[in-house]
């Protein structure tokens, strides 16, 4: 088991290094220059050259990369050109908000997807199955920003029920419970849209893998023995789908983070996605690099976690058998 874990961690590190090289090269190969947007026409053009030189942007790319990697390993992601703040500080500050948004949506959509996926698989070809499948198909196909704008139009503009943007009411000085209430009201729309879209896509995977299981002999056997539906579905059935479900959830979490970019932009939610969006628009290289590598770490980390959890959840996975053999 430990050997397996170490091997997986080693592979993850190699992947991260490769990913970081690709990201670095891609970002730095883009045309443009972060200082062009900062100066006006009556500025001496040499000013741009001077600043680029000072910040080391004219050094050869490999040299820049090695320097960047060295700093990053010390958890120093540099300073944002726009905000003049440490990138790590910016990311952590924004990450809280993204976690609030994506985390809530992740929990909600996991439950909804599991319930709907298992139930539709159990009641295959029923009207309920058809309706849910259709809805999920539509939600997966329609672009997020469109459904988001539609929700704003209906719930916020036409009905005037919910605030269309932000995380708290600007200009308010709420504290304690009032503040929590204010934040919750602002969460409804963005969390709602993320939850709907995420559960729609996760549900389809769960339905597929549960459908497989329901046709297995041992399931028919259990049913024939007169097992109650609840026990049959959740204990005998769902447990066998665990490996698939864990992998799915672990994979969906990072996609929830990246999916939040659009949602955060539309709802002006001050999270990491919007930070990256603004950074790209103003070519704030250190921030783009920082956020992208941060995302890469999360994705690779979730992959690793999924593998480990699967190994724990499913004793048939080879590592355990080997270990069992040696004991």
């Amino acid at each position, binding site marked *: 088991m430990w050997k397996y874990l170490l091997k997986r961690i080693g592979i993850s590190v190699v992947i991260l290094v490769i990913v970081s090289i690709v990201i670095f090269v891609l970002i730095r190969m*883009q*045309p*443009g*220059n972060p200082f*062009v*947007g*900062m*100066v*006006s*026409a*009556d*500025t*001496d*053009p*040499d*000013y*741009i*050259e001077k600043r680029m030189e000072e910040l080391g942007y004219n050094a050869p790319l490999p040299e820049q990369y090695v320097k960047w990697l060295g700093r990053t390993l010390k958890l120093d992601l540099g*300073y*944002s050109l*726009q*905000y*003049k*703040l440490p990138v790590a500080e*910016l990311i952590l*500050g*924004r990450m809280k908000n993204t976690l609030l948004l994506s985390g809530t949506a992740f929990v909600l959509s996991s439950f909804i997807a599991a319930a709907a996926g298992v139930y539709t698989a159990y009641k295959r070809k029923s009207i309920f199955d058809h309706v849910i499948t259709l809805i999920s198909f539509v939600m997966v196909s329609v672009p997020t920003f469109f459904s988001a704008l539609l929700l*704003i*139009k209906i719930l*916020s*503009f036409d009905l*005037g*029920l*919910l605030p*269309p*943007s*932000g*995380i*708290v*009411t*600007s*200009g*308010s*000085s709420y504290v304690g*419970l009032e503040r*929590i*209430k*204010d934040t*919750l*009201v602002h969460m409804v729309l963005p969390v709602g849209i993320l939850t709907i879209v995420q559960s729609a896509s996760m549900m389809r995977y769960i339905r597929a893998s549960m459908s497989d299981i329901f046709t297995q002999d041992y399931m028919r056997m259990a049913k024939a023995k007169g097992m109650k539906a609840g026990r049959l579905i959740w204990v005998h059935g769902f447990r066998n789908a665990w490996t698939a479900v864990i992998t799915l959830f672990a994979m969906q979490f990072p996609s929830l983070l990246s999916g939040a970019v659009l949602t955060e*932009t*539309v*709802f*002006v939610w*001050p999270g990491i996605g*919007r*930070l990256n969006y*603004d950074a790209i628009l*103003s*070519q704030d290289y250190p921030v783009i690099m920082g956020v992208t590598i941060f995302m890469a770490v999360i994705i690779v980390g979730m992959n690793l976690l999924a593998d480990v959890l699967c190994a724990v959840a499913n004793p048939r996975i080879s590592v355990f058998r080997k270990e069992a053999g040696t004991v």
Partner: protein
Amino acid sequence: MKRKLIGILLCAAMVCGLAGCGKSGETKEGETAGESGAAKKDTIVCGIADNVPGIFNPLVATKTTDQDINKIIYPSLLEITDTGDFQPYLAESYEVSEDNLKMTFHLQKEAKWHDGEPVTAEDVAFTFESIFDGSFTGTSYEKVSSITGAKDKHEGNAEKAEGIKIIDEHTIEFTFDQVYAPAFADIVTRGIIPEHIWGSIPVAEFENQAELFKKPVGCGPYKVDEYVEGQHINMTANEDFFLGRPKTEKFVIKIVSPDSILAEYQNGTIDIVSVRDLTSDDLTTLTDTLGVEVVNFPNNVYRYIGINMRKEVFQDKNLREALIYAINREQIVESILEGKGVTVEAPFLPAGWAKADESKLTVRSYDPEKAKALLKESGYEDRDGDGIAENADGVKLSFTYKIPSDSQITEQVALVVQQSFKEIGVNVELKTFEYQALATEAIFNHDFDFYTLNCQFGLDPDIKSWWHSSSAQDEPGVPSWNFDSFKNEEVDKLIDQANATLDQDERKTAYNDAAAVISEEAPMIFLYVQDNAYAYPEGTEGFSPYTFNVFYNVYNWTVPQK
């Protein structure tokens, strides 16, 4: 564990209570009677559809949003009004000497910084000395380098610039080596920073003072209570403001999405916001059903198609003129901009005092026949029947047109231009770039046939960096703001002449003559100046935005209670 459980229960209770509290965000407290007798809100929320990095020091801020907010926090010596004139602000009066080489400013005596310290001439001197410092990282040194001794200080040969003299606590005198008109606008609109706060920080480190930026000490009408990056800036009235206490207690800048402005108004979560990019339909909804008024005023930007004058084919004036005649610019303004803009014929803003004198301009209105005739005169016609004109040497009129991907309008205009050119036998291939990337191409690489960008003006109408031959560069990689490499001796002379006097009439005459020569030469296809537009609730008082400054009189604004 217990705490967690309570937390979860609390959240659950909150969610249950949600249904009824959709509008909890509205400010209902604190109604006060306005001047007109109607109740006014105690908070004005102003939306900005862009990010605010929060560099609250007017010397090192680069982003326009930051600069706008800095103008509220840090008053300048003079301010510009809604007619484009200067009026006293932090300086209650000023004199300029006969020879234009000396300016004396008398500061408001009761002005105080937000922390209670008095504002003195020392602070003004400190502000400019910081800009002169060799390690200064901002962009403004060149503009004020005509102050006597600025260069000595910049190069480290002097402790202080000779040309800045503190006469007494509230009087300061600037002396100049030579008259350089654009410096005036820059000096008098430069936000003044407090020496007792910034004096202990090395000038090179100004831009890294994140802590100070968040709690800026200025002497303006509002002081920053809270800056939350990516969300909002809450400001409170400065009771000791030297022009009297601001009329509204709180001023909030809120970051909004341009897509949900209507919903923001519907929810009462916003008062004033730019609506430049809204469609006519949305504007009608705003004004007809939401009780909002919209004010239009010309922006400080003109849009153009640049022509690379370095290329031999474009040396032919007939070709350049034909390209202008081929485009129906009135139609573009009418249909694509929905009438919200004006066409221009020369590189001056129609809203500024230096606006071009129409009687002197060469106006080339839409005339495709004339365009074809001009091409023919230069020997271009379609000889091989492929729809593209060529001359006897086989030079085809086929080019690349680089456009920025910044708005739908740009794209629509580019398609119209492509079609119009096609009708006179000129083929262009469109290539879309990120705005910044295209600007870099134009500034550094000079690699293009045609491109479209904005030309943005500051307060002073100086065009030296765009149109003077000394600003042109032909070598790739060497930056220049004269993107198209326009060189004309007469224009050079007129620009120098305009910059060498502070007399506005004299400058205007010189600029009008320069505009006449440039429009006659047809070195560029000037497109239009699009209107800027702001929305505000009916019954708002004091809000009068202008091309160069929206927030200048924010201390006078009031918004009625709904």
